[in-house]
């Protein structure tokens, strides 16, 4: 083989190797914090909800009960979404609708989407409302909106009734994180 051909082959091989290194092997890592999420609404009963409160990641769970007929619920929802985004490492947010399941696609999802919700949400399964209310907290009257904060063991740490500002939500979460 001529020397010049050898040099050319070597150069091409080197270039190919460098190209592979720069463009081929580099994978974009999706940050763990940003995962593919999409809006979904599924039915949930009280035992299933309570199971979700037991966490092994040390995070708080913020559970918000709302309804499509409840204007203050809709007004505070963007604050809860913002809370979830800003405290992603410290808490999980569960939005639980108190509505007819027939309204999921036509009414619930548009409201959730409008509030910036792009994650899994829930709707209370049809059943005894009074038992559900008392099962969450016997001191809860059933008034909406209602927000409950739980520690990672599933112990209820705070109950917020009526519409809240972002600052009030933040204050409550921070107080729970300090405990």
């Amino acid at each position, binding site marked *: 083989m001529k020397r010049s051909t050898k040099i050319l082959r070597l150069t091409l091989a080197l270039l190919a190797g460098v190209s592979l290194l720069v463009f081929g092997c580099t994978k974009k890592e999706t940050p763990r914090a940003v995962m593919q999420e999409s809006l979904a609404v599924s039915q949930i009963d009280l035992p299933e909800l309570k199971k979700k409160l037991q966490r092994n990641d040390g995070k708080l769970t913020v559970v918000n009960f709302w309804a499509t*007929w409840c204007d203050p619920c809709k007004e505070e929802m963007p604050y809860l979404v913002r809370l979830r985004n800003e405290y992603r490492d410290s808490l999980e947010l569960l939005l639980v609708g108190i509505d007819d399941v027939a309204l999921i696609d036509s009414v619930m999802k548009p409201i959730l989407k409008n509030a910036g919700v792009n994650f899994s949400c829930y709707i209370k399964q049809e059943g005894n409302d009074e038992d559900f209310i008392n099962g969450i907290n016997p001191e809860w009257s059933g008034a909406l909106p209602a927000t409950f904060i739980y520690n990672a063991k599933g112990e209820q740490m705070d109950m917020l009734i009526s519409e809240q500002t972002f600052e009030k939500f933040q204050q409550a979460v921070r107080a729970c994180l300090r405990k």
Partner: protein
Amino acid sequence: MKKFLLFLLLVSVTAFAGDMKTLKSGEKAPSFALKNYDGKEVKLENSLKENKYTVLMWVSTQCPVSNAYNERMVKLSNTYASKGVAFIGVNSNKEEKSPDIEKHSKDNKFKFPVVKDEKNKVADLYGAMVTPEIFVLDPKGTIVYHGRIDDNKAEKEAKTHDLATALDALLAGKKIENAETKAFGCSVKRVAAE
């Protein structure tokens, strides 16, 4: 010693200042005198003296759940008026003023007064949290039933007619089986704490 007792008193007052407990069956109902939308004063003690039972209903002009019960409130109040039961609506919502309450009452043909509870003072005394919410009082001012009107805001879907059942039991001199009930509704819109 005096200073210590004063300190204890201060601590106990501040400890309970932020807590609001909802009154339950068996507890004494606080007295009040509030104005109806026509300007006339409605005194609870007068209603207790003049009637066998008094039904206090926390209501709203804007809450879809409270409004779903408008017809039922009218039917119940009309039915039980002749049996010695008085109904008084109470509106504690900060944004709902007397003119709104008057229009709402007239549009829905309420024959019972709907008093305006300014700055939710009476709501705080009762611990009323939701609309609609019912407190039934006996002539001594003791709460004998507390909670919902029935178990479904859609009238045709209601299976238990709790308020009517309670009133029937009371008027018959019988014990109420479920003296405490609950249902989802709108939170009472309170003024911000000062």
